[in-house]
């Protein structure tokens, strides 16, 4: 698999198996100083402690030689327009969002359609930790240790049919719980899409957690997509429907401003947003901007998907 040969992954960064097997023992011994550290009450730690830890996560499946963006920043600064358009809104307004029970409808051109309970949907898949860069279309970026499983594994499970070419994802539509949906900033519900071969690539994951913990509401709980080589808005949150189609879906941002947001929305420093440059980005926590990498640094793995395509036209 391509990921295993990713240049980012060094053998030294993979947790030693013996250590991995003794992780529970390690957790026990680590627990005491951890609790003591909590007494210091760093707000970030306390917040993180509020989320349950996810059990049986395979660590180090994809790693990066770049500093992780702190939990506090990842969970207080993000776009999730269903909870408000300011990047501090989601953390504030998603506190009481109910993610249990949660059902995901899988339909369209698949042999095994159905309404899947969240637990049943996730259970057959081993959870793994993958550290990915996230590049927002607004020219800021983060490095986030997601916990999830490959999207392709789920798709294989439901068996796409012959004519299937695209996958469409839909976010929950519930204005009672999602105050942002009471305003017509975008056409609700939020819709995103991938070409089937993009979706079947080893990199995209369905995430259920970050930093080893259950995904916080504001980050798209209970289930979200993470496609690391595309602008952040492609990584749709709080998914309730996955539909396999023959026709290319129209994503919400595409519908809102087609001249600014294309279907592909691959991170591309050479194709500017009509209103701002995409050549550089501010990594959260850094002062100077850094150069934006083609396909957000995943060109080796994914550029082949777009061979022969004019990326200025298919932005």
């Amino acid at each position, binding site marked *: 698999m391509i990921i295993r040969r990713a240049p980012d992954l060094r053998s030294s960064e993979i947790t030693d198996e013996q250590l991995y097997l003794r992780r529970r023992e390690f957790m026990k011994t680590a627990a005491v100083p951890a609790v003591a550290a909590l007494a210091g009450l760093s707000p970030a730690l306390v917040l993180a402690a509020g989320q349950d830890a996810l059990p049986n996560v395979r660590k180090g499946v994809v790693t990066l030689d770049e500093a992780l*963006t702190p939990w506090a920043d990842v969970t207080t600064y993000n776009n999730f327009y269903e909870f408000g358009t300011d*990047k501090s809104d989601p953390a504030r307004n998603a506190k009481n969002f109910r993610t249990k029970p949660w059902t995901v409808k899988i339909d369209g051109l698949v042999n095994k359609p159905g309404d899947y309970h969240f637990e049943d949907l996730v259970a057959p898949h081993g959870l793994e930790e993958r550290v990915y860069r996230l590049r927002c279309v607004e020219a800021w970026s983060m490095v986030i240790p997601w916990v999830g499983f490959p999207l392709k594994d789920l798709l294989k499970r439901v068996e796409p049919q012959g004519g299937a070419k695209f996958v469409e994802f839909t976010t929950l539509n519930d204005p009672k719980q999602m105050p942002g949906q009471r*305003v017509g900033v975008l056409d609700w519900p939020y819709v995103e899409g991938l070409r089937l071969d993009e979706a079947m690539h080893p990199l995209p994951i369905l995430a259920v957690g970050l930093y080893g913990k259950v995904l916080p509401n504001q980050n798209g709980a209970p289930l979200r997509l993470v496609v690391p080589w595309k602008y952040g808005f492609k990584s749709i949150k709080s998914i309730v429907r996955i539909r396999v189609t023959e026709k290319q879906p129209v994503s919400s941002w595409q519908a809102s401003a087609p001249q600014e947001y294309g279907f592909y929305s691959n991170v591309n420093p050479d194709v500017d947003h009509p209103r701002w*440059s995409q050549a550089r980005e*501010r990594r959260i926590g850094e002062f100077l901007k850094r150069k934006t990498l083609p396909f957000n640094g995943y060109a080796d793995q994914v550029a082949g998907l777009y061979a022969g395509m004019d990326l200025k036209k298919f932005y």
Partner: protein
Amino acid sequence: MRAFRLLTLFVFVASLAPLAYLLLGAWRGSLGANPIEAITRATGVWTLRFMLITLAVTPARWLTGWNGVVRVRRMLGLFAFFYGSLHLVTYVWLDQFFDWAAIVRDVAKRPFITAGFSAYLLLVPLAMTSTAGMIRRLGGRTWRRLHRLAYAAAALGVVHYWWLVKADIRPPRNYAILLALLLLVRLFAFYRGQVPERRGLPVRKS
């Protein structure tokens, strides 16, 4: 005179409060995950607010009949220029870090930056001619005409904000509505003949 001094002092201190709040936030590290963006936004929004507050002084005078209020207009206008300057410095220094090539490209190529930069350029002559000496030198009539640029600067400021947002146009729209109201009041007053030429003048010393 004492009341006027107190008013001036109050307006001065109050006008520095947004900056103090920002500095406190920077010092405490409570500006969020992206402090540079927070500073850029705060200075920009306060520039717009001060422009609108300044443009509200004259209608407020008509409404209250209290002419003394016009004496703080210059200070409020200068604060608009002050926050506008901070906004520009934030962009040039913190955001672009003196990458002049990138800045020139931005100003030329990005309509929202073009609008914002133009708005700032319009404020420069207004700030420079804000002294009593300059008013005397220019003569009230010329000075007043020149200072009508304040309307254009405010309009460009709103456009700058409008063109920047991705989808949620409500905040810039609110500023646009406020500005439209402030301009409509003037139009209305003008047609009712309530604005004799002289009443728009600053206090003349000669």
